[in-house]
């Protein structure tokens, strides 16, 4: 029999050809999908008499924004500030609450995670109850709870609860603190502070070398702390204390409306910020606690025993043997929690904290109606912040992960 294979069937049965064929189909479909999406959007927009463009950003924003970190940082003035300023204010307020939340959630989460492994039954029971309650209630409800719990428990606007008389006080309009007002020459203290930190790194390198050569351990932490405090302090005093404090001013006489803390005096943390911060950090701390517990449990008991067999003292065992090994388990899921804090901060729109979603995609969007551009700009912010956080955490993970030789 003289059977000759058909060229087409030979071609069609080639695994390489098939692979390329389906890849091409997939890519073509995707390209056409996005082309169709963009084309449809543009057609529909032009039918509605709208166009795409970012020219609106230079327009003047004619509305007031709640006074917070962002309005202070960008010096928001109604009538002169633009929509771009509003965008930056939103970003600043979002980042502020994200950073505050990450720091607080980490501290509370690590504490709770260790408490849950404690031998003390009170600590253990507290941590277990906390974790199971908070991580099982939706964050939006917790946000409302903290906001209205905070509001209802604080004294009214014409009253105050003083934490440090005449310096720190709180009422329903916020937490009032003295605001630092740097005078001429304060920059030297800042430079001194930076130098002290650099010096501490030098001491750390030196201590490493000393330990490698002689085996002696230098108390780097104590020396570093002393340096970072003393050098800027001496500079500060030597330059004649160039820092004034603007203390909060409280009036309890005069017209009823003007009583209470005076605006423009001192520094204010609005209750919306406090509520968002509380809700985000307490909620996320519950998840971080479980991650920490998992990390510590992942280090086998044998490691501790081996360390003590080598004569390493118990506090060094925890710092040099257990925690570094626990960290490589902790870091990847911890990164996800940090990203969650940033993204969940957008829920703050519900309780009037002026973050990005509230001022830019809410109030500003209502004025200019550029939905596509504005939502796109907002998504880019969350994407950038999340990718940066992830990049940093991955870099840190590379440093702490198990190096296999």
């Amino acid at each position, binding site marked *: 029999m003289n059977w000759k294979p058909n060229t087409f069937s030979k071609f069609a049965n080639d695994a390489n050809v098939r692979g390329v064929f389906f890849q*091409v189909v997939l890519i073509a479909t995707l390209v056409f999908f996005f082309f169709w999406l963009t084309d449809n959007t543009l057609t529909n927009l032009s039918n509605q008499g709208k166009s795409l463009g970012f020219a609106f950003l230079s327009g003047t924003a004619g509305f007031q924004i709640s006074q917070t970190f962002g309005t202070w940082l960008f010096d928001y003035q109604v009538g002169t500030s633009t929509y771009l300023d509003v965008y930056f204010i939103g970003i600043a307020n979002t980042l502020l609450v994200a950073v505050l939340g990450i720091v607080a959630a980490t501290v509370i989460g690590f504490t709770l995670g260790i408490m849950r492994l404690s031998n003390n039954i009170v600590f253990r029971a507290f941590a277990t109850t906390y974790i199971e309650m908070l991580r099982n209630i939706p964050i939006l409800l917790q946000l409302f709870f903290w906001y209205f719990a905070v509001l209802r428990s604080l004294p009214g*606007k014409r009253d105050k609860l003083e934490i440090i008389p005449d310096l720190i006080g709180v009422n329903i*309009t916020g937490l009032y603190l003295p605001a630092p007002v740097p005078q001429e020459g304060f920059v030297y203290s800042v430079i001194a502070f930076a130098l002290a930190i650099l010096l501490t790194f030098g001491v750390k390198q030196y201590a490493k070398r000393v330990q490698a050569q002689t085996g002696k351990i230098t108390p780097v932490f104590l020396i570093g702390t002393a340096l970072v405090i003393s050098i800027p302090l001496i500079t500060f005093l030597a330059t004649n204390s160039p820092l004034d404090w603007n203390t909060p001013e409280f009036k309890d006489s005069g017209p*009823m*409306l*003007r009583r209470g803390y005076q605006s423009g005096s001192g520094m204010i943390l609005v209750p919306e910020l406090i509520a968002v911060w509380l809700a985000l950090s307490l909620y996320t701390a519950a998840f971080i606690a479980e991650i920490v517990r998992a990390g510590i449990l992942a280090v086998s008991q044998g490691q501790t025993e081996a360390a003590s067999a080598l004569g390493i003292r118990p506090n060094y065992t925890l710092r040099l043997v257990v925690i570094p090994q626990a960290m490589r388990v902790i870091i990847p899921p911890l990164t996800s929690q940090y990203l969650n804090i940033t993204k969940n901060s957008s829920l703050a729109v519900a309780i*009037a904290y002026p973050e990005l979603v509230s001022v830019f995609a*809410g109030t500003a969007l209502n004025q200019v109606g550029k939905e596509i551009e504005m939502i796109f700009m907002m998504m880019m912010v969350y994407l950038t912040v999340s990718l940066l956080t992830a990049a940093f955490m991955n870099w840190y993970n590379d440093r702490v992960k198990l190096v296999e030789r």
Partner: protein
Amino acid sequence: MDSKMIAVAALVIGAGAGFFIGKGNKEVVEVEKIVEKTVEAKQTSTLDAVRSKGFVQCGVSQGLPGFSNADDSGKWAGIDVDLCRAVAAAVFGSGDKVKFSPLSAKQRFTALSSGEVDILSRNTTWTMTRDTQLGLNFAGVNYYDGQGMMVPKSLGVKSAIELDGANICTNTGTTTELNITDYFRSNNMKFNLVAFEKADEVVAAYDSGRCDVYTTDRSGLAAQRTKLTKPDDHMVLPEIISKEPLGPVVRQGDDQWFNVVRWTLRALINAEEMGVTKANAASKASSSKDPALLRLLGKEGKFGEELGLSNDWALNAITAVGNYSESYEANVGPNTPLKLDRGVNALWSDGGILYAAPIR
């Protein structure tokens, strides 16, 4: 084999492009057909359509006390609802021949232009954009609203001009934040704005004392005040910082139906001016000697027929819901939970701005 692969890729891309381009063109054609259909729907008479189905389909809010709100048994009440009942009575002689469609703010104009409802009576602000760009006509104003401010009485403030330095709560709305900022800027006063996403949270925050002032439309303030712990400890300031004329809307291009709705509203206002009420309308129609009154109630002239209705159209409307004043007092007036004074919504002869063209 490489050249074959390129050929395959080119084929796939070509086929795909052809498919999508073809599809795109089809969609354009379909959209054009829909537009044509809408135009046709507009050209058929709404009054005939309403007559043949036997009731008026009325678009209302999803629940705004005093304006359009359904009670526990599902019965709708409010001044916007009364207007629909009056139109139904003018057409059919009975205020019950009406069905209500609760609509959200986003749905309302689409529901009207697609013919899903015959009248949109849903506290809708009459603006130039809406009147000129949406293919709709406003048949009049049944409530002159405006953005106002509410304060606790304990603040001792009598006017918004004293509010320099106040904390103000509001919800992010179409122009709420802009209006309040404009007011304070033009009076050279400072304030701090706390803007929530939804009205419920604004009420809770204001009630707990977070703010000195709550600002939104005055009718909204009156409705929200009923939700406060002690409604009587709060007052609405006299200043009105924006114009929000609310009124019924119909489709553009059907002048007959437009006239029916417009003149039904005017008949209710004229009835108040002439002292015709729900109770005395029938007796006045038979006993009065006043020619203006006789024309309104259909005993003189053929005004109803000119509208395409029966001559007792206004008498039926008034008998069904009462005159404007009766409807106002029953739904939003001082003896209702909303406690809204007539203010600018009084008759022109009483110091307000309600002025209905005469029936003659």
